[in-house]
């Protein structure tokens, strides 16, 4: 006859290991699992029509902070001269409209469609100029020089965004974001105009072709299915260490409990 407390205490190791595994699973889905991103299908109408539509959108959604004439205000910077490129980056990635102040703007679910982004961009471009994206269709960028893109990425990008675009920490709470959810236009525009802390890579440094190559490489490594199974978030040895302890040692400790337990 076994005492119930004895039986319970024999169960405890199993329960602990199970809880650990559940916790890791939860953490994984919460933080590491890839999020799907919106697909795009842009189409711009006549230029003036777009500017007009963009103005309406601007006045409705942006002017409170950035001013009625892009002059900026207490809530946001002036937008003269930022160009269409910055609009695409900020709005298409969902960073604008801003939800709350923090060390830096976080990526959110985009509030404007790609067509609306183009209209906003046309309006800003028409009223202040600035860097403009080359005609770059999100769906179009399906080929490029992966080798060159990879070399440029490792030289210029991986030190912040990590070897596979998983992102990384910067100083004092700032961070280089994960690149997987970024559309091709957003990646290109980020290099072009250097949002927030990101350095700017002018056309004199990286030509349009080179930027496209980097963009294609980023899209490739963040999207292509990996040959070796689950990519564990592409954070390198840290998740690998977690897995060996929680899955490897966890499973084998359960096995030892099973083998060691007399029938």
């Amino acid at each position, binding site marked *: 006859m076994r005492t119930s407390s004895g039986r319970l205490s024999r169960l405890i190791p199993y329960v602990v290991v199970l809880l650990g595994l559940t916790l890791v699973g939860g953490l994984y889905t919460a933080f590491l699992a890839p999020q799907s991103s919106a697909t795009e299908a842009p189409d711009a109408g006549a230029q003036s029509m777009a500017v007009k539509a963009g103005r309406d959108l601007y006045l409705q959604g942006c002017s409170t902070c950035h001013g009625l004439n892009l002059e900026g205000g207490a809530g946001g910077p002036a937008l003269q001269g930022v160009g269409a490129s910055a609009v695409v980056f900020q709005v298409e990635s969902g960073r604008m409209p801003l939800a709350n102040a923090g060390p830096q703007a976080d990526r959110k679910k985009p509030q404007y469609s790609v067509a609306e982004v183009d209209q906003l961009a046309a309006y800003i471009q028409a009223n202040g100029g600035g860097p403009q994206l080359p005609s770059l269709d999100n769906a179009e960028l399906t080929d490029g020089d992966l080798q060159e893109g990879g070399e440029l990425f490792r030289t210029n990008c*991986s030190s912040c965004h990590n070897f*596979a675009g998983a992102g990384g920490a910067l100083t004092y*709470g700032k961070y280089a974001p994960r690149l997987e959810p970024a559309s091709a236009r957003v990646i290109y525009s980020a290099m072009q105009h250097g949002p927030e802390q990101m350095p700017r890579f002018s056309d004199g440094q990286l030509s349009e072709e080179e930027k496209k190559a980097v963009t294609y490489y980023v899209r490739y490594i963040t999207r292509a299915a990996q040959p070796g*199974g689950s990519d564990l978030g*592409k954070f390198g040895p*840290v998740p690998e260490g977690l897995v060996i302890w929680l899955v490897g040692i966890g499973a*084998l*400790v359960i096995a030892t409990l099973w083998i060691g337990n007399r029938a």
Partner: protein
Amino acid sequence: MSLLEKSADSTATWVDDRLGSSNFVRRSLNKVFPDHWSFMLGEIALYSFIILLLSGTYLAFFYDPSMREVIYNGSYIPLKGVAMSQAYATTLEISFDVRGGLIMRQIHHWAALLFMASIVVHLARVFFTGAFRKPRELNWVIGSLLLILGIAEGFAGYSLPDDLLSGTGARIAYSIAMSVPVVGTWSAFLLFGGEYPGTTIIPRLYALHIFVVPLAILGLITFHMMMIWYQKHTQFAGPGRTENNVIGSRLYPVYAAKAGGFFFLVFAVTAALGGLAQINPIWLYGPYDPSQVSAGSQPDWYVGFLDGSTRLMPNWEFRGLGHTVAFNVIVPTVVLPGILFTLLIAYPWLEARFSGDHAYHNLLDRPRNHPVRTAIGTMSLSFYVVLMIAGGNDIIAHVFKVSVNQTTYVLRAACFIVPPLVYVITKRWCLGLQRADEELVHHGIESGTIRRLPSGEFIEETVPLAVPHRIMLTGVESDAPALAGPTAHGAEGQPKGPGYGDAHEVGAGGGGKRERVRGFFMEKRSDSTTAAARPEATLPERELEKTVD
């Protein structure tokens, strides 16, 4: 007799005709191994080492440890035409152009991580149960050496692919060697054949990785196993188990079947990880270039504690008298592991000296019965874990969206606050568990039956503890046991020596400093409060029968 049985018989005859080994073989087949789940943790390390040898041999057929520059022309498209070392190119070839090469690489790497993790788990088991005590101090030392060699072996292997991550690691290793006063630059130049990166470090690490270190590990493992074989395994207290015997399954067939089965289970887990969880994707890291680096550059987990200590270290450096001494480098990466590993290796002698316990021990302690040792162990582990967490501070900051600077400050404080806290909590906890055990032993298990005494008082009836359970708790087979202290059984299996019974008595004896240290070390709960309330010394036989498990 079936065919199988006949062949077993004839094999025995055939072998004995040639080797005369029947006596030895039979004794070996009959060797008894105690059954306890925690005794199998070391087996994981042994089995993952075998897996490492198997998978590593396969990899060695394809890998070329050359730093000669080549232009890649394999099948991984994003690197086609890129200049890289031959070492990196052949690792890519294993991953993409050899059938089954990638899974072997991944199994090899997962098995390496598992090897180190199981060594740590096994070491913790040996520590907390006091299995390192006389006569097993030598095996503790060998185990510690295996841990250190494992780190060296793992680091060498991690460096071989010559990818961006491993190259960064090699550079850090070079810089650490450089920082050592007086001999630093000499040793770094000897190792790397000149200024970093040179062209010799990969071939040299390869020689170490596939020959020198594995041979040393293999030799030490052999010695480790021979000692276990000769000294026989320790066991926990239990019915019939004494200092002078070992109770469990015989090697043949039961233990062999279980251990052999477990080998395949370990292999199955590494195979599953190797196939389903991608590890060290060198094609994403890219070839090593000294001007490139990736965010989140970390070593494998077993070096993580050194990376963490380096991250937490303040930027102290001595400059003067024509020399520079980088305390910010040597303290966390040379001095700290030096101290930690020395203490680790010396622990059996330290404990014997302070506790005054020089007796033979074949029965294991339950961790709660040696609160000070257990607390020292958890304290050390917590320090180690804080350092390891610090090794991933940037990943933590990024994933949990906190400031990497704040994370670092918190972990710096944690380095000094957490271990003492863990020590105190563990010790209290152990004493609490002892009290609970004492209740069980002296009062039995609460039955749930409430009875009202004529005086009006309510009491709960208790059922005396099952005998095997009680023996497990007390470590002795007498009817009126005191709770076992740290087991200090003499050679005859009789409890004796300091630490058995009430340790406060030892301390209170006033025998000077040494005695007080001993009393502190062997501290256990005083038994006197419950002694008076002890039930009948002999249990009614009927009760006993019912409760035997």
